[in-house]
């Protein structure tokens, strides 16, 4: 009884608590790390080393006026920020943090993640459309084109891992990496997946939907208060999700000596998260045509070749 109903509820509560708080901590961590790499201090006034900065930001954002522009499509405008947070949080359902520490181990785990990430596009597209503002609309259209293009080979890059592990379940994929982490045989898949992950979370080399130099703030130009906060939190949740999936699929998930499995998972995820921030600190933004070109002309053929070679090798090894 306890293990059937109680344990999943504990996992759900734990995952929500850790993931949502991590999103807040990440905002502070990102600003501090960016500052470190750019030879300045960053936020260091609130609390020790400025740790409480996100709390102060949160208080401020809750007391802002909750403004819906009169020219906007009201229902869609309010609904859009919720969609991204809901879809990303739902994706965490299939992430295995340690043996047994998973909300539900469905046998279509990876497909479920892909389904949720393809629904996440609606959030940004609808936000751009509902704002009824040309900058928002252009931002929304860029997001749609970008995420549609990058979703295709994000799915394909994961299929190499699926072929090697012989399962769509992330728990079984982690278990299959006991001998060798998939970051070595699937190095091409790893690179493609990571690039696609950057584009899916529209992080800096691919953050054209909100390019402030040309589009004010892109799809969220008209948003303020906690509705804007939802997009912000959604972005950090997305980065956490991509990092934990990268760890689960390519870096052996919870596998590792001495330390408890959950800790291994956390350490690996944190390293990938820092990589996300380092990329933001070091790369300039792409031009829009370059972005689409990278997607369709290089990444898609690369992931197809990777899939073909993986399939061939697995068949030969049998």
């Amino acid at each position, binding site marked *: 009884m306890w293990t059937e109903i109680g344990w999943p509820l504990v996992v759900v509560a734990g995952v929500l608590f850790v993931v949502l708080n991590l999103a807040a901590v990440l905002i502070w961590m990102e600003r501090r790390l960016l500052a470190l790499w750019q030879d300045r201090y960053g936020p260091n006034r609130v609390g020790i080393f400025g740790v409480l900065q996100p709390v102060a930001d949160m208080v401020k954002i809750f007391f802002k006026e909750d403004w819906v522009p009169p020219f906007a499509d009201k229902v869609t405008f309010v609904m859009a920020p919720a969609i991204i947070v809901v879809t990303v949080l739902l994706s965490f359902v299939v992430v295995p943090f340690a043996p047994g520490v998973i909300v539900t181990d*469905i046998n279509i785990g990876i*497909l479920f993640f892909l389904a949720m990430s*393809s629904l996440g596009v609606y959030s940004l597209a609808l936000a751009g*459309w509902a704002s009824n503002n040309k900058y928002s609309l252009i931002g929304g*259209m860029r997001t*749609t084109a970008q995420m549609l293009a990058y979703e295709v080979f994000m799915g394909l890059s994961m299929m190499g891992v699926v072929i090697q592990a012989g399962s*769509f379940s992330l728990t079984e994929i982690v278990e299959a990496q006991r001998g060798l982490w998939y970051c070595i045989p699937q190095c091409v898949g790893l690179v493609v997946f990571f690039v696609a992950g950057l584009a899916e979370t529209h992080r800096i080399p691919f953050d054209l939907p909100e390019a402030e130099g040309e589009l004010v703030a892109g799809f969220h130009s008209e948003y303020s208060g906690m509705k804007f906060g939802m997009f912000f939190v959604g972005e950090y949740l997305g980065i956490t999700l991509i990092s934990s999936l990268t760890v689960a699929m390519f870096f052996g998930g919870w596998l590792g000596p001495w330390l408890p499995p959950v800790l291994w998972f956390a350490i690996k995820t944190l390293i990938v998260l820092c990589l996300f921030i380092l990329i933001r600190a070091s790369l300039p933004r792409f031009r829009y045509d370059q972005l689409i070109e990278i997607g369709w002309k290089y990444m898609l053929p690369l992931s197809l070749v990777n899939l073909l070679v993986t399939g061939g090798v697995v068949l030969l090894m049998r």
Partner: protein
Amino acid sequence: MNAVFYMASAVAILATLLAISRREAVHALLYLIVSLLAVALVFFALGAPLIAAMEVIVYAGAIVILFIFVVMMLNLGEVAREQENVWLSPGIWRVPGIMALLLTGLLVYALFQEDRWLPVDRVVDIKVVAASLFGPYVLMVELASILLLAGLVGAYYLVWRGPIRRPGRRD
């Protein structure tokens, strides 16, 4: 699972009706997405998780977002809404209504012919689907891929600017 099936089916029917009758194109598409998600749930309740996932990834996630993309690009406003008002006059429902009624009658008749139409106790494994797709139905898969290739070539031709013309040369 039976309760999930009936609830999801009810949502699907309701959302589809709303998708047809909305005058704002984007709202209609939003109801279409809800309807597709409900259909995915129906597939899941019937024990076909792969089809359910594909329904969400391909239909809700890729095809309808393209529709929304086009609607956003055209930026239809008041004019389109008035046109929809003209098109959606009560008289227009007559012929499609009769046809839909006929089809519903046929469907209900067919359902009552077969009494084991709800196989909820069986989950179809992904490997079984793959084996039948690339086994007995491989010809259909190939035909579908040829159809997609034709669409791809057609789209490529539409955006092709033709051979580069040099001045002073007729072609």
